């Protein structure tokens, strides 16, 4: 439910924001995760991270479809990932939306270390997080780089005992996304 609300928010975000503001938008960001368990290293990534950042208010929203993650060690693994663990039928998206704590002007070129405070929704479970990110702004382009961990327990993702040794309890997530400045009504 929460996930759905967040998704709707992302869809509507441009329209609910007042005026003719311009927003940073990202249509094909890369989000990758690594599970480094004693018996197996699993890495997968999606190139379909969507995001929007309002440089005026510091508000932001990100979303990625769970079933766009590829690069698993086997097709079966990908199937388990989607069907058993993340249940992408019920919870098709992971989202992160909130506000940047620091007051930075994201219209100005420069390198910024910011902390994004928001609600991280994975597997339909919302969790407030502060995520430290590197933001680089230059010539109509904004790049976000961040890495953070997601404990499976935080999002009620249950791992059967039998594959315990193959899946890490904390998943390392890395985000690398490029944004372009676009008018909000486009």
């Amino acid at each position, binding site marked *: 439910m929460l996930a759905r609300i967040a998704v709707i928010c992302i869809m509507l975000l441009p329209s609910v924001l007042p005026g003719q503001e311009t927003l940073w938008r990202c249509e094909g960001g890369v989000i990758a995760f690594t599970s480094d368990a004693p018996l197996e290293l699993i890495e997968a990534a999606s190139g379909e991270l969507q995001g929007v950042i309002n440089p005026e208010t510091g508000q932001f929203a990100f979303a990625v479809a769970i079933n766009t993650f590829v690069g698993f060690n086997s097709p079966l693994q990908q199937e388990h990932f989607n069907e058993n663990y993340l249940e992408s039928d019920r919870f098709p998206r992971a989202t992160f939306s909130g*506000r940047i704590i620091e007051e930075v002007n994201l219209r100005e070129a420069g390198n910024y270390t910011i902390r994004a405070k928001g609600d991280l929704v994975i597997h339909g479970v919302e969790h*407030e*997080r*502060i995520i*430290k990110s590197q933001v680089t702004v230059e010539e109509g382009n904004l790049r976000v780089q961040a890495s953070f961990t997601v404990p499976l327990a935080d999002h009620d993702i249950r791992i059967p005992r039998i594959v315990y040794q193959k899946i890490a309890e904390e998943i390392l997530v890395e985000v690398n996304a490029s944004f372009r400045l676009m008018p909000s009504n486009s």
Partner: protein
Amino acid sequence: MRVVQLVILSFVGLPILYGQTLFFRTYEEAGSANLDLPNCLIERTNGFIYMGDENGLWQFDGRQFQPISTTDSLQDVAVSALFEDSQQQLWIGYRNGAIYRSDGLLPPQAWEPEEGWPAAAITGFAVDFEGRLWWATYGEGVYGLKDGHVYQFGIDDGLPSEDIYTIVADQQGRILIGSDNGVCLIGWSGDDKFIRHFTKNDGLPDDIIYSLLPSPSGGCWVGGYEGGVSYLDIEHGIASPLPLEWPGGTIVDLLLCGSDDLWVATETEGIYRWNNQRQTWKKSSHEDWQSGSIHAAYQDSEANIWVLSREQIISSANTQFTFLPLSLPTPQSVALDDDDGLWIGTEAGLYFRGPDRQSFEQFSAAKLNIISLYFDPNGVLWIGTFGEGLFALRPGTDELFHYGEQDGLNNGNILSITGKDDQLWLATLGGVYQLSYHLTNDRPSLRQLRHLEGEDAPGTEFIYCAYIDSQNRVWFGTDGEGISMLSPAGEHLTYSARKNGTPIRSVYSIAEDGHGRIWASTESGDILYLENEQFALANFRPSNRKDAFVSLLNDEQGNLLLIHPNGIDRLDPEHLTIVHHHDAAGFNGFEPGLNAFSTTAGAAIHMVGLDRLVQYSPTTNTIRQHPKVVIDRVSVFLEPIVFQNTMHFGAKENNLAFHYSGIWYTDPSLLTYRYQLEGFDRTWINTGDQQVVYSNLPPGEYTFRVAASANEDFSQAIEDTYHFSIALPLWQRTWFILIAIAGFLGIAILILRQREKRLKREASLKKEKVQSQYEALKSQINPHFLFNSFNTLASLIEEKPSHAVSYIEKLADFYRGILQYRERDLIALEEELSMIQDYAYLLQERYGDNFQLQIDLERRDYAIVPFSLQMLVENAVKHNVISRRQPLNIRIYTQDDLTIIVENPKQLKMTKERSTGFGISSIRSRYAILTDQPIWIDDQPNLFRIGLPLLKPKQL
């Protein structure tokens, strides 16, 4: 809850007592430290004080500031918050938002959660009831750890402001913060954040809250920017202001001294004290600091208050003592009335100061020489004078009533007055009087119950003091005749000698401690105590001055106080620990009057000296009575090491230096140490130094123990220890010795084997040699050879007689060679060759041109086994056809400077010559003894070659 009740009960404006000030010591000159604008200070469990200023972090032991550098030298950044958690880890918050952490005395290391550091100044840390860490920032609200993540509480979450000044955990471990918009209780309700907000509307003094102090009774004291202090009852959400007209000032810190004293440090108005029991405010501020501003205040475990300020940097004062300068004629006695009015008896009259006054005024015109003062339970002040008898003053009146000979007081020198109920005891220079009084008239009437004089007097009629103990025994200190005691049953006992027989002479003061033990002080400054009905000498002497008389009294906690010219000593009767309060506490030049103190139940003890009035209020906080001691540096060859992780030293790391710090903020100058290196020192060694060096420690297990004392008594001193071991040098370790023995054995065996081999080889060489000599002789004297030679010779004699001579000469030369070389293992190649040539000559004479010997040698400086070439040539001659059709051409040549080769065409005789098989095998075995290089044989269908190793001539 009592606090709240009191708050509600008393809503009257309470007076401020003027003048009494703490005695502050400032440390701005301490050490060479370049201190700048201190921000925060804490005392750690290990005893050290840590202070954060604009330049970084400092460690302070009461004498010196030591800069603490972080692991990555983030040094010149302002430290804005310090905190120690229950694991004794120090948390350091920086103004730039960085957070560092230090374990014990190890250098601080960056502590950065995945979510990063705030970009705003850290203003405080707290740990909640679940052990979770929280930190407050100025600009980004509050951060807290939960399940491994950092969460922010900010405006979005309902926090009224993100500028947080202070964060505390209350008695139950709940987190409270003070901000620009009141106080918030924050925490988690399941997985949801909750924030409860209190404002001025709830009774807070102000919305800007700099200071919070959790109260042991469950609530929290709240210090406002304006408006003073409130007590916040968190459950009910009610804040009650203190019942007084707030004198003004911005509160920067609140401290609680015991359950009764709330200390309020203000930015510019000094320090106020709120006493719950007495419900009075006392303003106290450093005299030369009135214009300065206070940044922060802190209370240590020794009842000292620490004040951080821009001007004085860092100052401390003992909270138990306050001082008021006096300029009165010699004060000799002091008493406190029920309304906090102070009365001082001087050698020239009685002086009084009301509770709301700043100065003393002479009470009456009479210039009486007042030695003793006593308030009876009815509030009547009894005044004992020197030479002029006794006076009485009823409360609220100003008429002095005189009592003298007409009332039975034959002696007018009243040195001490004490009493119980309606009875008075007077110690005079004319014996002891026991009197009872009645307040029927204006003038209290006195009736004499007993007068101990002459024969009845306690040894002498000169009595210095009278003291009633808890069992209603009355004790007298006499002039020269010891101590006397009158029991309630009328029994009279005199103690004129100590347990060991030493006479007790004059006794100036007597008191009973909280454990019922009687103490007395003598004219020589000795302290005696009663044990098993006898007085014994205590093992301490408060003052070294000869004329130092010591006044004794007990405080409300049962401690015995000893007042003497060096200051005040407090004796804990249970552990018999003595704490000195001397110059460092403000007693420099203190000249106390004998028994010039007041002990009024529920009030501070007052004592007077020549130029000052001292007020003593024992803290109800549990205070540390012994110095702490910390081993803070261990050096190996003067190079400091991270000793916390190092317990084992190599054999050569045997020069160790230990540096330790005693912690006694009360008076660091009193510190003495004793140490012992167990495993090396047989006894404790007393020292004033803070470092000891041990050089050339032998291998072994050691424990360095050190203790510090501020009263030279180490029986209860706290110790610090450091265990370590010095390893045996390599050559003394068991495994090394075993390996060495094994090695020696191995080498010995090897040598023996070699020797055996050599002997064997020598033996076989000898055998071979003998054999070869024999064979050579045998072959050379071979009748066949001789027969052939003689046949050849015979034909020569016939055909070429001249040749015959040279033939015989060659034959002779050849045999001489055999004789000459047969004993030797090796001969020069040259020698062998010359012999071969002789031999070849003999053969050539026989075979003519059918036998050819060709020698192609580049170098001849080699050695060779004797007769070896000769034997090979002989073999060739022996086995091959030599004829005109098949001449035998033998070549001797060298190859690669390594091998000498004898080569002949293979033209075997049809009838094989009988072979002994000795020739080649003898050569082979002789060579085998001399060299590793093999003898090789190249036996081809048409060619036979045999190679002998060439040996170096040095082997000759």
